[in-house]
């Protein structure tokens, strides 16, 4: 008797549990806002400005996706996540987009069932030390206490670098960048390690940035990029092409200043026409986007170069690997046709 009732309960449970999966784009449109997961605070990438608005390179990308899908870059709800909680939050549906300097790795892509849609920043792990320490190379760090931001690929790179060079260290794992900064400043650690971009951002927030230096060794490849959940290819394509549209903007010289003007006229370069909706772009309707999607992105957020220079130049970060391929960098996007 009891088993039968339990069985009935189980069946009811199954019926309750089965949920209908609507497309991510429909969810965002129905809500009228994009939920975007960003860093808890990293100058240049995602940090609140003096008015309390989130701003930064990663925040710009959230805005760009909102501009493309909703037509308004301001329609974004920001959710912050630490390195540890970001994938869980994305998987749990707290956001449609994770734009939080996340390194693209095999196991994250495959095992965690996420889709990395591209690279918006090529980075590598480095070391920051106080100049007073007198260290010139990371190989001279034998026995040092190293502050690490946990929940990143950083721990593994660090372990491999030190083991590979046969030197010892004392890891001090810290949850967020802000806390790690405090410990480093208090002298709990000799060294702070994270992605080089993060080191520059952290250094610039110090009272005396010139008392610190980033050591020359870059010990890892850290291709950082936006991430979406597995399983909705339409959404993944939208996010990927928003990123490419920003880079195409730089490549074709389309900026937030001249985009409206270029969109209005017939350009010689037909790729500009297709990107800005003058000429039809075959398949755009399958993405569910309107013809002015790229115009919205570039006019409201700017192209890749504008976003980079606005947020990362103040941190003394150079274009380097993050220049377009024609300028000696790594960014090379598929043609828009």
């Amino acid at each position, binding site marked *: 008797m009891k088993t039968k009732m339990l069985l009935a309960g189980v069946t009811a*449970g199954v019926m309750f549990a089965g949920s209908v999966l609507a497309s991510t784009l429909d969810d965002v449109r129905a809500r009228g806002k994009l939920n975007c997961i960003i860093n808890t605070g990293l100058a240049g990438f995602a940090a609140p400005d003096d008015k309390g608005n989130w701003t930064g390179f990663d925040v710009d990308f959230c805005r760009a996706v909102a501009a493309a899908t909703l037509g308004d870059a301001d329609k974004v709800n920001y959710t912050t996540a630490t390195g540890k909680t970001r994938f869980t939050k994305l998987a749990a549906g707290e956001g449609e987009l994770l734009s939080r300097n996340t390194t693209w790795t095999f196991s994250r892509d495959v095992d965690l069932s996420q889709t990395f849609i591209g690279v918006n920043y090529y980075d590598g792990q480095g070391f920051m030390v106080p100049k007073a320490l007198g260290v010139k190379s990371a190989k001279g760090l034998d026995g040092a206490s190293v502050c690490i931001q946990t929940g990143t690929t950083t721990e*593994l790179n*660090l372990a491999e670098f030190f083991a590979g060079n046969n030197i010892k260290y004392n890891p001090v794992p810290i949850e967020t960048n802000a806390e790690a900064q405090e410990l480093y400043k208090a002298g709990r650690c000799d060294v702070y390690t994270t992605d080089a971009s993060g080191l520059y951002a952290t250094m610039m927030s110090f009272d005396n940035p010139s008392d610190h230096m980033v050591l020359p060794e870059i010990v890892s490849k850290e291709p950082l990029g936006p991430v979406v959940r597995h*399983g909705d290819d339409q959404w993944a394509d939208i996010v990927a092409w928003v990123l490419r549209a920003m880079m195409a903007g730089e490549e074709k010289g389309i900026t937030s200043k001249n985009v409206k003007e270029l969109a209005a006229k017939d350009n010689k370069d037909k790729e500009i026409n297709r990107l800005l909706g003058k000429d039809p772009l075959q398949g755009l309707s399958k993405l569910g986007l309107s013809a002015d999607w790229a115009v919205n992105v570039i006019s409201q957020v700017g192209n890749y170069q504008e976003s980079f220079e606005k947020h990362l130049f103040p941190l003394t970060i150079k274009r380097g690997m993050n220049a377009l391929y024609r300028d000696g960098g790594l960014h090379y996007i598929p043609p828009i046709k």
Partner: protein
Amino acid sequence: MTFFSNIWRNEKSREIIVQIIVLFFLGWFISWLVMNVNANFEALGKDISFEFLFIPAGYDINQYLIDYNNRDSHLRAGIVGLLNTGLVAFFGIILATILGIALGIIRLSKNWLASKIAYWYVEFTRNVPILLHILLWHGIIINTLPHPRKAISLGEVTFLSNRGFYIPKPLTETGIELVYLFFVIAIIFSILFAKYCKRKQDLTGIQYPVFWINVSVICSLPLIAFFISGMPVSLEIPALKGFNFRGGMHMSPELAALTFALGIYTAAFIAEIVRAGILAIDKGQREAAESIGLKPSKVMNLVILPQARRVIIPPLTSQYLNLTKNSSLAIAIGYMDLVATLGGISLNQTGREMETMLIVMLIYLSVSLSISALMNWYNSKVKLVGR
């Protein structure tokens, strides 16, 4: 129809029916939860698997009680974390117990100042969240103590710095076995001597200072053996090399901060429990004990505390459990406990949040249940024996 209404009117069968219904809903709810998790995992293309436990963890841990390096498995990293949890809980419980009992007794002292100090200690400490205690102690240690290169040295063998406390490490050499042997002999002697004195006192009423005799025996016998065998212990003295001290024994600022914070915070609760336990003893007991001429210390140790213990132990158990569970806040300051290793870095590296959290929860549950079982056993030993 009458059959069913009879069943319902019968108190016994009605109870059973109600219980079956409750059980049904409980079962339904639990199975719904499990199904929901399964359905969502399936929708996300994830599976539940514990294979990740056996792949190399890849990260380093700064404090390990068993051998560990970054090629060991996630499972071993978890065990290292668990032992670190155990270590800080152990130190914390000792500190909290000693401090708590002392404060509880002082609080009842007739000395106005002492009693007020204990009162303010308790009120201030227990009304501040434990996380703030931990951050405060950690902040104090790393911000007030100097850099290792300017470490405070105590006799050039012990050093205090913001990297923690370094003390000399005793290294045993051959011949140490004699010292161990004498120590065991001293312990056996003490037990026999205590039994002998107890019987003597029961028969004749003569008292010996058993405690002090035993203490001096336990201290002096191994010491004699130590000198006979030619002092087979050498000290490894910590020395500054490069960035940090090397050698000796090391207590990290995180372990120290966590021990202080947990011990001092929990001591406030224990003090109140001890006070309540003592106050629960009828004042006639104290008066009776005083009237037969017992010294105040004997009144406390022989009459009050043995009775108060019965009131104290059950709530004390739950304080020990709280302390152990609170130690999971270690993650705030980067102490590598179970939550930071298996529930932190391993979770993040493997992305198995469901699996790691289940394991961590089960481990905390079993640790709590074993502390509880131990204290229940002790409680049953000291509880009032019905005569």
